[in-house]
């Protein structure tokens, strides 16, 4: 499962092996990213069937375009960008990815935010809380806190400016906190 620096190194090593011509590395790459990628996709599309279809389209695109990837370290963001595009196609059909009103705040997000969010959280509450959020809020929280992407990478994946990503994360955290507090009370 991907998330820590060690996981990202292993992922990059697999990408390098694949770029050098090792076909087995592709299968290992799929295995390494399967769970986090599926979790992300499942939060964007409506049904499980759509999620598996999106996974399939994503890896098909990766297998066809991987040679164009010039920087192996950029693979995770590239992978999620492909997955996001495929997922949005499915989601658009069901109008699940309606855009949010523009946020004006440009709050910064610090590393300690992870601890702030994790306070008194357990996995099931977080999983449930994420499901209650608006799609775009849910997306940035998953990418940043669960998938371990930097703000710049999220900006790349979601194709929005860095400031918007910061503000979206700030609002998403507030929304998640509100949801969890409401549920607790």
């Amino acid at each position, binding site marked *: 499962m991907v998330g820590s620096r060690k996981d990202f190194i292993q992922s990059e090593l697999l990408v390098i092996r694949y770029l050098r011509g090792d076909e087995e590395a592709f299968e290992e790459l799929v295995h390494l990213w399967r769970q986090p990628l599926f979790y992300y996709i499942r939060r964007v599309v409506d049904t499980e069937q759509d999620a598996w279809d999106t996974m399939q389209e994503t890896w098909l695109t990766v*297998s*066809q375009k991987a040679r164009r990837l010039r920087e192996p370290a950029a693979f995770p963001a590239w992978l999620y960008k492909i997955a996001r595009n495929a997922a949005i196609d499915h989601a658009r059909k069901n109008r699940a990815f309606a855009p949010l009103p523009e946020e004006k705040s440009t709050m910064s997000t610090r590393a300690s935010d992870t601890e702030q969010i994790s306070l008194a959280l357990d*996995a099931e509450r977080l999983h449930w809380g994420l499901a209650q959020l608006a799609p775009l809020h849910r997306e940035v929280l998953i990418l940043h806190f669960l998938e371990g992407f930097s703000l710049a990478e999220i900006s790349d994946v979601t194709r929005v400016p860095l400031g918007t990503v910061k503000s979206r994360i700030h609002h998403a955290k507030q929304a998640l906190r509100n949801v969890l507090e409401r549920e607790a009370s």
Partner: protein
Amino acid sequence: MNWEQLRKQVFGLETTTPELKEEFETALRQILLSPLKPWERAAAVALVPFGFLLTGFCALSLLMKPDVFSTLIQAQVVLAALVGMLLAGWALRVLRTGRHLRNRLLFPSVAFGLFVAMIVISIALTGSVELDLLAATMLIGFVFVWERVEVAELRIRETALRQELQLIELTDCVAELRDEKHVSGDLNQTDPQCEPQ
């Protein structure tokens, strides 16, 4: 509970239907087995007869009318026949395996080797080399060197990453060991599990 454990637990909460997962696995195997696009397959199919025809034409030309060609042209026709065989062999292998030959140095190496061979033959037989041939060889040589540099960069990056990974694993191992020894009170014992591999 730390954040890493929480994250893993959250991912683990995602439920999946075994049948749909199996469908995905099957589709993935198809992706892995046959990544050839239709036009790539068509190109490979066309290359097989082309390669054999080229080889046959060159061989027949040399056998039927050997006196028509100069020695230099004859040598180049032999090379062309060789190219035809290589093309047909490559296309047949692509069709048989249903996938690209992903060794990125293969084509530049073969092309560069053929052009160098043509120059060597030219110099050996006539004592000179045509500028066009020299320019083409240099151009292909540039592509060949470029590919080699990129592959070398990937190898260097791979080596650096492997060392970083080893360092992280050693650090984790030492940290775990330290925690265990703090609990057991034995700080002088060494553990072979943390030996670098």
